[in-house]
């Protein structure tokens, strides 16, 4: 193998490590934004969805997503075993585990652990890889005349997680005490954990986005470097804008929302990070940082869908917006760069069809689970905490 090939493999593996570590980031954000009595359960769910995801994605998920060129579906080969391609298997595995983790956040503090394990597996080996196949595995969205462009997964990963999270949070209902007439605040128990989680996620995104180039040799090097810049600027812009919006709107800059703002910028830029300029990335970040505040309020106060960590808004809404904005800001094909409406149309088609898939299947899944084994812990368990009841101990002693 020549040096360039080895270099590419090295880069994919390193990026995979960074994306792996995002699991810790998600776990910390979710733990920090919820109450101390449920924190062990949250950690356990995050730990398990990566573990189960790793195993099941290897067993079947990877094949469904990348195993063939069908319009809707890859192939059904069990126990992937292709020595020359293990770096890709690794990179795709750590990606796959992300979608389930997003759902975990939106349904935190009230979901039955055993049920969670089941839907975590279903998301990782059914919902995510099938729609993923449409875009990245050679499926119908990638063979459109103007192919749908989602470079690193604003829609394929984040929106899928976000819309499934919406289906879940809606089906399971709000936490006790969250709504009595109006929306109440249920403050997260540890903002330092939340902030550390966001720093880890931001770092992980330097694997998530530039790693999706899947190579760094030759001209890929400059492309990768450019993605670092667009990713970082969008995150920074998102954080800054959210801070100022909350400042003007609530009178004070809100910490947990600002943290969400950085993530919103990151999710927003993920689809187009390879194809926008630094200025375009900054504008996408600004838009995401703006949208996320109103989206969180909308779901929380209007729709009364209880999402403790803001996962639906950050991943679902900002993922969708970011994907659509590619149609405007793409230097190659974007409306603002003279590319007309073709790309924007494909983007909209992709956002809607994948959104419908993830939300639809999510809804069916959660309704079935609710009717069969039950989705929610008992009232007493919820009040006294999932740690004591699901795991027999408290996490802080």
């Amino acid at each position, binding site marked *: 193998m020549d040096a360039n090939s080895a270099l590419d493999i090295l880069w994919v593996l390193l990026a995979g490590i960074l994306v792996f570590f995002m699991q810790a980031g998600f776990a910390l954000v979710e733990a920090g934004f919820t109450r101390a009595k449920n924190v062990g359960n949250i950690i356990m769910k995050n730990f398990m969805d990566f573990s189960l995801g790793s195993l099941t994605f290897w067993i079947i998920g990877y094949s469904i997503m990348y195993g063939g060129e069908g319009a809707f579906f890859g192939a059904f080969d069990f126990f992937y075993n292709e020595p020359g391609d293990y770096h890709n298997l690794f990179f795709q595995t750590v990606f796959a585990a992300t979608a389930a983790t997003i759902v975990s956040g939106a349904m935190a503090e009230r979901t039955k652990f055993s049920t969670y394990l089941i839907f975590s597996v279903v998301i990782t080996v059914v919902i995510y890889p099938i729609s993923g196949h449409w875009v990245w595995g050679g499926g119908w969205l990638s063979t459109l005349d103007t192919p749908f462009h989602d470079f690193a997964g604003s829609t394929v990963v984040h929106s899928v997680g976000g819309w499934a999270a919406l289906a879940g949070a809606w089906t399971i209902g709000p936490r006790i005490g969250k709504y009595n007439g109006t*929306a*109440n*605040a249920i*403050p997260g128990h540890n903002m330092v954990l939340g902030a550390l989680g966001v720093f880890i996620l931001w770092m992980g995104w330097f694997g998530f986005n530039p790693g999706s180039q899947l190579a760094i040799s030759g001209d890929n090097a400059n492309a990768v470097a450019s993605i670092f810049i667009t990713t970082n600027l969008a995150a920074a812009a998102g954080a800054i804008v959210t801070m100022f919006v*909350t400042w003007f*709107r609530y009178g004070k800059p*809100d910490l947990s929302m600002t943290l969400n703002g950085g993530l919103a910028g990151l999710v927003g830029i993920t689809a187009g990070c390879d194809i926008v300029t630094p200025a375009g990335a900054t504008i996408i970040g600004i838009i995401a940082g703006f949208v996320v505040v109103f989206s969180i309020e909308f779901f*929380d106060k209007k729709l009364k869908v209880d999402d403790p960590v803001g996962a639906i808004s950050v991943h679902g809404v900002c993922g969708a917006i970011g994907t659509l904005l590619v149609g405007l800001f793409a230097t190659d094909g974007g409306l603002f760069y003279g590319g007309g409406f073709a790309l924007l149309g494909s983007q909209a088609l992709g956002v809607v069809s994948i959104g419908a898939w993830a939300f639809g299947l999510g809804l069916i899944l959660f309704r079935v689970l609710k009717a069969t084994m039950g989705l929610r812990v008992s009232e007493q368990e919820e009040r006294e905490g999932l740690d004591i009841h699901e795991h027999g101990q408290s996490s802080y002693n």
Partner: protein
Amino acid sequence: MKKIEAIIRLTRYESVKKALEEQDITFFSYWDVRGVGTAREGHLYRGTVYDTSIIERRLISIIVRDENLEKTVQALMSAARTGEIGDGRIFVSEVEESYRIRTGESGPETLYTK
């Protein structure tokens, strides 16, 4: 013997401690409590205002001989006061017996401040 329980602002604790020391009251226990009362604090989390009447306070518990009651209450009162709503309360009740664990002695003398 009397038990004095003062519920004060966290932020007045240092002054109160100094005022008590000046009166030779160098024995007491304290812990943090939450107070519900007329004082209001506006908290904000993710755009939602909440928790407006629960305030972090410190409860100081001092057992004194009867003759020291007055000066202790006075010291507490003046050091804990800011004049703003939420300064807190002082409650006094009777204590029947006091033991010093180390020596096994009992009675008001165990409250001596040397």
